[in-house]
């Protein structure tokens, strides 16, 4: 009485599904083993072996070296302070965006997120143009006051690094605190007021406990990003300030101390893993809190009342504060674009930078012509996108394959397996990925002649967590019951995938893909460690010119990156929400 063809199809379906899961795990596992775990074990080898036998002397040397201790403390200190400043500025800004509704709010919010997706080296250049000792701010200051010494010094100062980090990460807090503020029902506050609670009490007892989780996970995210900051600290820190990331780079690249570098990389990896696990914990708690909450929050229009002057003043101050943040956010980006048209000497055309793209004049310095660098950049980014997407879609397929084999409500082995092996790559810094690749492959023919393969692979490893997250967050919006219904109606696993799941996740795939593209586009740390000869990217090109007096050419290259990034970003905005999370 049951259709035999249906039965047969179902059997084939199950076998196929199982074998695909097996193949994906195999492929993904071997990818990770070859390009992540094997390089990582090489780092272990350098940290624990002097070539012949096991030794702990490197570990002991590394953790007792006063320089390392100092840099470790600095890494913590700057990450904590950057995080605190971001919180102090970002939480009220988030409140403003949550509370008030005005025209162009979303666009503004999106534009304010751009710094976060800009390549680090571009941010750095924008910073030098804006806040450098002969930059805009200091010129205006000198012009206004006649005082010769600059008001802001960004090179070799703690505050320079902090300002850059705040600029880079502020949007994370703003964006992530908006849902926090929105999660609080205004009725709760009304009720509390009616019960006679003071504003302070309401803040402490009603608001704070409810937004705490959101804020902790946002803060941890900023901590992770700044803890692993590279380009900004490499250039602004001069030698006085180094994050572990910079220190590892210098040990490996300038001092050729591979053992020391590898050991420090391991220490950094352990610290990162701890923070990532903490973050994942708070993030899932935030998600649980957000789940099942109806969208009850109502934004209001900005309005001035005739009665309360005090209230008007506070709104005005608020708007002023937001405007300051906007200027702070946009000036470096605008500065880069203007700088690219600013002739570096008399008689030079404003378009000189763009003309230089097609010349070979800077080839010995850049390793290639600027145009080739652009093509390299785009090529690496495209390859990274394709590989990342293939791997992440397959990964999601495995991670979310449980409904069919849902036995005893248990998380399947494959899901567990995959979610564990992915945490470590997430916690591994770009430099560590790069030195692993370098230590393992630096004598291989591919490394010597086609180093771009490893550059792309490193970019893939960096992008996968982001892309997988985007796709997963799209996938998680699918009601599992819907898939259940579809299967009771007789649809095969693949019909369900193409007819339902794919339609839900394709936005996630686009967002994830663009994310991978943007990451590869601006990746600097790993690329600069691995790069050889002609395989440079625009970021590398900019970095080679960033200390020169003539910022026109690097500003031109940076402008191109800015424009591509903005385009990517607008596409992301069109297709879905940007996931700032790792």
């Amino acid at each position, binding site marked *: 009485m049951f259709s035999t063809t249906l039965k047969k199809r179902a059997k084939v379906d199950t076998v196929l599904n199982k074998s695909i899961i097996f193949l994906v795990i195999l492929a993904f596992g071997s990818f990770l083993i070859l390009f992540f775990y094997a390089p990582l074990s090489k780092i272990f080898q350098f940290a624990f072996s002097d070539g012949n036998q096991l030794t702990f002397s490197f570990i002991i040397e590394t953790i007792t070296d006063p320089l390392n201790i100092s840099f470790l403390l600095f890494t913590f200190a700057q990450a904590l302070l950057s995080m605190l400043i971001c919180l102090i500025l970002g939480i009220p800004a988030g409140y403003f965006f949550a509370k008030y509704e005005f025209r162009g709010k979303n666009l503004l919010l999106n534009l304010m997120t751009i710094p976060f997706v800009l390549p680090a080296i571009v941010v750095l250049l924008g910073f030098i143009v804006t806040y450098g000792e002969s930059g805009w701010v200091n010129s205006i200051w000198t012009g206004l006051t006649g005082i010769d010494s600059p008001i802001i010094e960004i090179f070799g100062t703690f505050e320079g690094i902090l300002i850059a980090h705040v600029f880079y990460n502020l949007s994370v807090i703003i964006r992530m605190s908006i849902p926090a503020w929105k999660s609080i029902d205004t009725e709760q506050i009304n009720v509390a007021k009616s019960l006679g609670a003071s504003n302070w009490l309401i803040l402490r007892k009603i608001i704070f406990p409810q937004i705490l989780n959101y804020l902790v996970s946002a803060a941890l995210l900023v901590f992770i990003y700044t803890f692993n900051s590279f380009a900004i600290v490499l250039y602004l820190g001069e030698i006085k300030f180094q994050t572990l990331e910079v220190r590892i780079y210098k040990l490996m690249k300038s001092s050729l101390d591979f053992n020391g570098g590898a050991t420090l990389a391991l220490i950094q990896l352990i610290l990162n893993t701890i923070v990532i696990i903490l973050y994942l914990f708070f993030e899932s708690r935030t998600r649980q809190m957000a789940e099942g909450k109806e969208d009850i929050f109502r934004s209001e229009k900005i309005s001035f009342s005739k009665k309360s002057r005090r209230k008007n003043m506070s709104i005005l101050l608020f708007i002023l504060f937001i405007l300051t943040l906007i200027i702070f956010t946009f000036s470096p980006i605008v500065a880069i674009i203007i700088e690219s048209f600013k002739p570096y000497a008399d008689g030079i055309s404003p378009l000189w930078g763009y003309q230089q793209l097609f010349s070979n004049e800077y080839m010995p310095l850049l390793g290639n012509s600027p145009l080739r660098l652009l093509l390299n950049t785009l090529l690496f980014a495209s390859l990274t996108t394709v590989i990342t997407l293939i791997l992440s879609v397959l990964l999601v397929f495995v991670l979310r394959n449980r409904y069919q084999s849902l036995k005893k409500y248990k998380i399947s082995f494959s899901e567990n397996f995959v979610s564990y092996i992915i945490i470590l790559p997430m916690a591994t810094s770009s430099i560590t990925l790069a030195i692993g690749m370098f230590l393992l492959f630096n004598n291989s023919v591919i490394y010597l002649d086609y180093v771009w393969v490893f550059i792309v692979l490193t970019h893939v490893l960096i992008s996968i967590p982001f892309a997988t997250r985007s796709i997963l967050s799209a996938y998680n919006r699918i009601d599992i*019951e819907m898939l*259940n219904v579809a299967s009771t109606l007789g649809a095969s696993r693949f019909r369900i995938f193409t007819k339902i799941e794919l339609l839900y996740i394709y936005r996630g795939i686009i967002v994830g893909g663009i994310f991978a593209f943007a990451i590869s586009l601006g990746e600097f740390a790993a690329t600069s460690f691995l790069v050889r000869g002609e395989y440079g990217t625009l970021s590398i090109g900019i970095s080679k010119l960033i200390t020169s007096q003539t910022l026109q050419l690097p500003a031109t290259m940076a402008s191109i990156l800015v424009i591509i990034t903005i385009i990517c970003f607008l596409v992301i905005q069109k297709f879905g929400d940007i996931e700032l999370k790792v």
Partner: protein
Amino acid sequence: MAGLLMKEISMKYEKKLILENLDLEVKHGELLVLLGESGCGKTTLLKIVAGIIQPEKGTIYVDDTEITDLSPQVRQIGYVPQAQVLFPHMKVKQNIAFGLEARKLTKEAIEKKIHWIADLVGISGLLDRYPREISGGQKQRVALARAMAIEPHILLLDEPLSSIDATGREALALTIRRIQKETSTTTLYVTHNGDEARLISDRVAVIYDGKIQQIGKVLDVEQHPRNYLIARILGSPNIWPILYTKKKEKTMLSTQICDIFIQDEVNSKITGIKIPPSIISISKTQIEDPNLVVLKCFVKTMIEKSEDEYRLILDLKDNPSEYIKVDCSRVEYEKYVTENKEIYIYFNHLEVILL
């Protein structure tokens, strides 16, 4: 012939047993209402029938064929989950066609089937709309149509009325009943609301503690619930659990509202009492009679059931958190009840139904 037969089904969730050696038989063409409180495992049971969850133990037969190991795709079971979960990116028509397309029917056949089921369910006018453009009740009908289109061996309905406005509930329930009868589809209908069972079921099965506790026609179960819990699940009025019992010359059953004395030794364990509204009388004054239970009350609300029939809801003076329902005639009402004045109700110990 058993339309659906389940034997010794067990299911654990995080080490807690939610179904334990459950047996259930639904006769062919019958509508069986599975009644239970939330979290009792009734939805899990539906999913097990649909094949979405594999039971840890047990066997399932549909029309005497074992389906335990079949995948949901081939079971041909119509499943309507609680939230209707229509495919939001498909029109109503495509939603209904989804299962038919999976069966590789010809276009004409699919078209024909869609129109047949749409007429039957009463959604012919909605075929070209998207799910977001129709009301909750209509969505439920579409979900029903989608499940019925594949001519399922079994139809599974999970709280189909829960997300519908009160006004539409009865109509939808009756539609379900009509279609089920017309197609004589074996149907398992899950709800927590006894009224739904009273409205459309052939039989009702009450489930708790992972087992079917009582099964039978609604009236039979209502009149002879096996215990207090079943009566409560069914939503019977004026029932109270026994707090404790005392045995002297008579047995005393203590409850929240009163103590009941019964003559004889009771063989089975008594879990509760039921005081049907019909056995209760009202009086304006205190009555002294050892055979009667007399309670002092205030009138809380009065509901006019008809011209001459009133239902009173009374607060107990001694125990204000409890209330009791009493039926009375208009004449009695006018005679005994004055606003803000206490009244007395009384009933015979022996007329109290023991559960």
